[in-house]
């Protein structure tokens, strides 16, 4: 398999968590993912970066099938993504996702946001689900907000609730889709701190982000995408210090100028 060869430089921590082989996707005539080969091992932390419109978000949205790919193979936790709804539900139970715009449920309290999926998907008794939710709300350091509604919280708090909500399903893999892009600078730090803490627990993570500091601290590997392709990937220090392609050089110079 050619996907395995591209991984030669990356750190292997365990069994494969996610395998993408020859994945292609089009939006109408627009070819948004071109021949993507990517392996992520259990416990690995991968940061995906690249200019806007490069297909990073589409890539991770394909992993839990919020987007459908048209060609190639995606295997998550040993289950291949297909049109079979049962396998899709099984994958979504094991893969948590955090969105750029939080997407909390505004008609439910913070606690209810967190217990909804454990109750309805994991079939957990309410008391147990609430205890679990409080545990994770404490871990993201906002247990005192449990009875409030999302509209009453700041952006940073909402995003931390969104992380807790995903963790309540005890996923094996977490996907982050630009989790800090919609936040004020002062709130970015509290969310990143939460993500670093999560990384330290050994969670398998794929993060689409422009936060290069975060990539340096926690990522085992950085994947650089441009125009729907994976252009370069490697250990963060090396990738940032010695970019091999012009496209990555340009991207890095733009990102660094911005900071």
């Amino acid at each position, binding site marked *: 398999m050619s996907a395995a060869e591209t991984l030669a430089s990356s750190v292997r921590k365990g069994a494969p968590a996610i395998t993408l082989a020859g994945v292609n996707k089009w939006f109408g005539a627009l070819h948004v993912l071109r021949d993507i080969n990517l392996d992520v091992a259990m416990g690995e932390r991968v940061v995906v970066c690249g200019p806007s419109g490069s297909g990073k978000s589409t890539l991770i949205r394909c992993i*839990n099938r*919020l987007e459908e790919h048209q060609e190639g193979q995606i295997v998550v936790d040993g289950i291949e993504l297909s049109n079979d*709804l049962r396998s899709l*539900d099984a994958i*979504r*139970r094991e*893969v*948590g*996702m955090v*969105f750029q*715009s939080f*997407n*909390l*449920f*505004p*008609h439910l309290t913070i606690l209810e946001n967190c217990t*909804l*999926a454990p*109750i*309805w*998907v*994991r*079939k*957990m*008794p*309410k*008391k*147990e689900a609430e205890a679990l939710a409080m545990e994770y709300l404490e871990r993201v*350091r906002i247990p*005192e907000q449990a009875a409030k*509604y999302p*509209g*009453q919280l700041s952006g940073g708090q909402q995003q931390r609730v*969104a992380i807790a*909500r*995903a963790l309540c*399903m005890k996923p094996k893999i977490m996907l982050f889709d630009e989790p800090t892009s919609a936040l004020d600078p002062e709130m970015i730090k*509290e969310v990143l701190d939460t993500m670093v803490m999560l990384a330290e627990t050994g969670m398998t993570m794929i993060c689409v982000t422009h936060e290069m500091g975060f990539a340096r601290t926690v990522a085992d590997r950085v994947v650089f995408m441009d125009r729907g392709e994976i252009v370069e990937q490697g250990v963060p220090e090396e990738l940032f210090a010695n970019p091999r392609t012009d496209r990555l050089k340009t991207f890095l110079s733009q990102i660094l100028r911005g900071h």
Partner: protein
Amino acid sequence: MSGASTDPRLLRKAPPRPLRISWSDERFRNIVYQVLVVAAVLTLFGWLWSNTRYNLEVRRIATGWGFLSREAGLPIGEHLIDYDPSMSYFRALLVGVLNTLKVAIIGIVLATVLGTLLGVARLSRNWMLAKFAGAYVEIVRDLPLLLQLLFWYSLLQGLPGPRQAFNPVTGVFLSNRGLKLPYIQWEAAHSWALLAFVVGVVITYFYRRAARAKQMRDGQIRPIWPFALAAILGLPLLVWAALGAPFTPDVPELRGFNFRGGLDVSPEFFALLLGLTLYTAGFIAEIVRAGILAVSQGQWEAAQALGLPRGRVMNLIVLPQAMRVIIPPMTSQFLNITKNSSLAVAIGYQDIVSIANTTLNQTGQAIEGIAIIMLVYLTISLSISLFMNWYNKRIALVER
């Protein structure tokens, strides 16, 4: 990011702002404006009142409610309660109110069902269905209701007579005498079965609540529909069977120039109901569509990413949020159906306006007649508003 203990200084309330007697104080200015407006309104009403009394006196018109107990002598074709022309005006007006309520309530139910289906259809991925719903909404919304009522009424009037009536299914006849439907001879057993049906609906509601509470305790998700089926359909059937299962069909039959037996829907009522339902369904369709679209795609995605199946996403996430957008304009549409039913006058359905109008002409009690019409619509409309506002408040979104 602050912890649980709050600085006591943060709990201090804003001090009350004293009122300054000065034109540059906004609050003072607002109070003055409000006093002036109230005074102007009171003066206007006072003038109208004295003017009316003066003119009534000059024309020697007696006012009062005495006429209500006099014999009406006015024939009414359709009545839900016992009525003949020898009864009082009060009784006649009551028949009118019930006729208005009949068309309004059935219209509201049908328009809501049809409108919701059309609204969802317009969002369908099926091209044909979406375009059909779109075309329907555009045509129905853009033509005046009165025109549509006249159209349906003339269409029904233009149907062939009873002898050549359309007979699509055995027992169903559509002619210029209206719609005839098969019915059964109503017996006590049927009333008991109907009661059992209502009981079935009520206990299904409580069963659902109990099942939900039990789920919250042990986590098991229990399907409701087997119980609902047994309670809502099974129980009435059982009661009916236990009471000897009486069933005497009452099928309309052509006798001479008209039909005998069966359930009778007059062309006037049918045209009015058809017009009101089809017209209002167009508006309700748009309201439902807007409500569903108002829930962002992100809500679907977040719920699906958590592993919730589509049906649960709809019930637990999308509908509760869509309802908040749907309820207030829906209330307006319910009020519209009720008030638009007064166009019944144009096609000869005897609703409250039609009967109050005749009363007014026969007795000359114009002010009382108009007052009765206004009172009836106000009462119905305020009842609908109160109920819908209560419901809306119950599901309101908390922000800040």
